[in-house]
């Protein structure tokens, strides 16, 4: 490899770098046009960091276990216990922080399962017409037709209530939305000239699905994923609230809200703070989702 060639490669890679930077700048500009999206970004980052750093920032990490401190129960918020203590004397602040971890983990697991499956099914249905398309879309329709929460409730009450089963139930009712979304985009893109060009060149169906059509669906999919974080957490918390998800003493935010319900309004802080935490996470990701959608709009 001679010098000229080497110089050329270096110059080309600099150009590639600047183009990627250019691309990132453009995306950021579109995202940051709305102040609310920035607020959402901050809220989402705070939530994620809290979840990741939970063991280190919670002042009383032992309170998430079966431990009890009945002598300290129902204490008002103070310096020692910033959000007060609950009916078992446990520090609500620490439990809420771990609650972030649980909720976001649940959202992550569900989405990691659901998105690839849903998207691939949608791509297949959108690009291959005929029987396959009909079968996939009608099965998806069936799952969508059943009210989500009812289905999850049904599944969870049949199986033993646990976080794992709650996640499975939510996953089962979530995948068809991604299939539908991808299917619609893929169907309309199928008739675009560039897809026909690829077909005429002789590209394989695999290539057309994943290298031609999929990149153009990513914008919508990403937006939906961001908004779905909020939804999955909400549904998951609802399941825990009725006792079908995480079981005590797991510091799931929904369980915490439920557990403190009977002590309202005297010892309000036991329910309210976890509820506010749920709202914070969902709000943050919703606003972030709006921003992500803006990123893909001119």
């Amino acid at each position, binding site marked *: 490899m001679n010098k000229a060639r080497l110089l050329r490669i270096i*110059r*080309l890679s600099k*150009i*590639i770098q600047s*183009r990627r930077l250019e*691309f990132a700048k453009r995306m950021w500009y579109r995202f940051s046009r709305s102040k609310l999206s920035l607020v959402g970004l901050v809220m989402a980052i705070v939530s994620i960091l809290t979840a990741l750093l939970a063991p280190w920032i919670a002042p009383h990490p032992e309170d998430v276990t079966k431990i009890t401190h009945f002598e300290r129960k129902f204490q008002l918020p103070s310096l020692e216990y910033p959000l007060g203590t609950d009916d078992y004397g446990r520090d609500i602040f620490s439990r809420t922080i771990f609650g972030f971890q649980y909720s976001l983990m649940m959202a992550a697991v569900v989405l990691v399962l659901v998105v690839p499956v849903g998207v691939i099914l949608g791509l297949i249905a959108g690009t291959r017409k005929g029987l396959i398309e009909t079968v996939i879309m009608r099965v998806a329709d069936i799952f969508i037709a059943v009210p989500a929460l009812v289905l999850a409730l049904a599944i969870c009450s049949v199986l033993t209530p646990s976080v794992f089963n709650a996640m499975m139930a939510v996953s089962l009712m979530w995948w068809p939305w991604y299939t539908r979304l991808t299917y619609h985009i893929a169907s309309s893109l199928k008739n*675009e*000239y*560039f*897809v*026909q*060009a*690829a*077909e*005429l*060149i*002789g*590209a*394989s169906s695999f*290539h057309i699905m994943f*290298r*031609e059509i999929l*990149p*153009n669906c*990513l914008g919508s999919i990403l937006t939906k994923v961001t908004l779905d974080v909020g939804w999955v957490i909400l549904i998951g918390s609802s399941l825990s609230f009725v006792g079908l998800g995480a079981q005590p003493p797991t510091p799931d935010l929904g369980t915490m809200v439920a557990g403190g319900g009977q002590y309202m309004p005297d010892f309000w802080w036991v329910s309210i703070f976890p509820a506010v935490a749920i709202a914070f996470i969902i709000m943050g990701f919703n606003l972030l989702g709006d921003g992500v959608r803006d990123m893909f709009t001119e």
Partner: protein
Amino acid sequence: MRETTASPVGFTTKSDDKMAEKESILVVKNLTKHFKTSFGTVHAVDNIEFDVRFGETFGLVGESGSGKTTTGYMIMGVYTPTSGRIVFKGQDISVHVVKRPKSIKKDMSIVFQDPASSLNPSKTIKEIVGLPLKVHGLVKDNVELNKGVEELLEAVELPPERFMDTLPGDLGGGEKQAVAIARAIATHPSFVVLDEPTSALDVSVQAKVIKTLMKLQQELKLSYLFITHDLSLMRNVASRVAIMYLGKIYEYAPAHLFFHNPVHPYTKMLLSSVPVLTDEEETSKPRDVKSTGEVSSAINPPPGCRFHPRCPFATTICKVKEPEFVMIEPEHYVACHL
């Protein structure tokens, strides 16, 4: 001057078949395409025939609804013909593109009308132009791919350093079309269908793209099927021209005869409507036919000669019987009862 009735492709017997196929890269016979829709059957193309000779540019002219784009798509295999034959280099290829052998796909390509949607907006130019090279195994590794793409971009006069890693959205219309052309010639095909390649472009850019196409035709010995509605452009690129209306070909002649001695009323009507810049061109336009009426629907085409509702010279026979081709002069055929 009328001579013997003959089919425009120049052969009437089976033995002439073989002869014609030797000098023609593409022969189309009795080609028909009907689409079934909820409104009825659309007669997009009805029983047309023509041939494209090696190294020439064959022009297909017509307005919207004439069937010219459908013809181009059938040749490429996007649509399967309802009936008829498409013969490419002696091989019958009248099937959908997925059923065609890879060697045929390598040998024929198309440049679409709309540069914006013919390039995938999320792929870089390198990926777009490199795709045919990869699919047909013309490059072994990334280094060869880069080199191949660079050569192609240089051939269409797009400096590779500037354009390799850009997205189509950052390019102007003419540049996008140049990329589409680079992609079309990537596999060194022998035949390219050009479907209104410059209709979406400004005039100054159009000139550059056309020059590039002409240059490439010379260098790579390409044969073109040039589809357009712009007659002034056609005059300058095509060696032979056929005019289509509502799915049928009505006149067929070498370029200079087509423009200087048009015979069919529709040809004259089209020529007289062309907006021109100089008085010289203005006087060259036919005077006896002015444009009237709207293009009829292809769903229930008028019986007899399909042009008769708009034709100022229509007679009773035109409404009933479809005209056959008559030879006016060598290579100049017209289907008209006049």
